[in-house]
């Protein structure tokens, strides 16, 4: 009996959350209307905007650095240290640090979340580039390619799967944490999940559902891109190795 009641309670809580996403309702604090498709879409858009800005900033720093270090086979200790340190960064402390010491607003927040994306992208780019078969590089050099040609026509294509794995990790780190931007004056879906006194449990759970869906979708899209960017030769080699 109590079991049934518990299950109904859980179901109705999630039902209320979906209702909150699709229908406006009066805020817990009274007066204003909150939730509904308009605000939900606006916050999803904001969430994605901050995510992609931060991801772009992380890519702009981490990919060139990883490509150069990996091509030269230099700075392994440095790249691995950054990669490991990245896991130890407490997200809440990072956003608080940036808000207090640098400032609030979109640019500062973008910077904070880029920091979360850099370590996995940097280390995977480095590993991907430096693990390219030396024979392939030597063959390219023998064909008269210069360093730039080797990077763009040999090493990068072969490193793409590894780099994209890092981009996926970095992007998921960012989109999962961007909700905290709401603490530093930038609206995201964090408005819902951190604003229980305004949006109520339905709003909080709605925010959690939307963030989880966005994250899983982004992960799947990036997995598709990774597959599409993998050179056909590598796919064939893997299929051959697997069977």
């Amino acid at each position, binding site marked *: 009996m109590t079991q049934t009641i518990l299950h109904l309670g859980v179901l109705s809580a999630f039902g209320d959350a979906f209702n909150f996403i699709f229908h406006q309702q009066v805020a817990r604090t009274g007066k204003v209307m909150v939730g509904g498709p308009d605000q939900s879409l606006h916050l999803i858009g904001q969430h994605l905007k901050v995510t992609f800005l931060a991801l772009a900033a992380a890519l702009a720093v981490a990919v060139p650095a990883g490509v150069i270090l990996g091509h030269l086979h230099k700075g392994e200790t440095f790249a691995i240290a950054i990669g490991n340190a990245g896991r130890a960064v407490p997200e809440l402390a990072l956003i608080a640090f940036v808000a207090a010491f640098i400032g609030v607003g979109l640019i500062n927040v973008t910077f904070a979340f880029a920091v979360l994306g850099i370590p996995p992208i940097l280390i995977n780019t480095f590993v991907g580039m430096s693990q390219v078969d030396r024979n392939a590089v030597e063959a390219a050099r023998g064909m008269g390619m210069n360093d730039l040609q080797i990077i763009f026509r040999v090493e990068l294509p072969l490193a793409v799967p590894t780099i994209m794995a890092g981009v996926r990790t970095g992007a998921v780190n960012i989109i999962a944490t961007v909700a905290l931007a709401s603490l530093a004056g930038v609206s995201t879906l964090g408005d819902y*999940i951190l604003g229980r006194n*305004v949006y109520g449990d339905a709003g909080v759970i709605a925010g959690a559902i939307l*963030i*989880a869906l966005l994250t*899983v979708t982004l992960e799947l899209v990036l997995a598709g891109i990774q597959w599409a960017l993998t050179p056909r030769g590598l796919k064939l080699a893997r299929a051959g190795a697997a069977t």
Partner: protein
Amino acid sequence: MTGLGAHLPLGAVVIHQHGGTCQADNGTFCFGWAADNFHRYTTPLLNHLFIVVLAVVIGFVIAFSMALISHGRGWLIPAFTGTTGVLYTIPSLAFIFLLLPITGLGWTTAIIVLSVYTLQIIYRNTVAGLANVPVDSKDAGRGMGMTDRQLLWRVELPLALPEIIAGLRIATVSTVAIASLMVFANVNTLGSPLYQQITFKTNILIAGGLMIIMAFVFDSLLLLAQRLLAPWRRQSRRMAT
């Protein structure tokens, strides 16, 4: 559309200790305030330590059992890797609130979220460690007449130990970081002082610093454990995520 600052604690910092100018000016680090108020961090620090240890222990017991179950049943490995991988993808902040209707907010929710996050890393590393045991060592064990069970506990697991501990180190260090978010599950970890005075610099440096020190200490202790338990330590594989 409601204005944001209206209900979030930005700027809600109330600094009313002893009226020194450092706090009032929000100086880079107020030593006086830190000395007078350090006791505020004791409970969050102990809670943080406790929840990290508990979550990693629970996560280890589950992930290690999963690895043993899938050992020798290779067809289970993709299923287990997939399940732990999907769980790992759910953002921790969202996970807390998805559990809200089921376990409410509090220690239970916090421990569930934190232990679930350790599963993927510990499971993957344990499986990789077991898979990398040299065939020669296993053959030698068999040749000595060991049963499967003896082979597992006396040959395979000891040789897999460096990779298992490598997984534990990553899991523990990330758990120290994620545990700060448990303030949103109403658990008083080091995230609580951060959240309560999010623009007060001294506070951020103390709470953030304590977390970084904690991560470093856990990491060093596990490394030490590995050196003591597996002194023969094979060349450890570099793990690209």
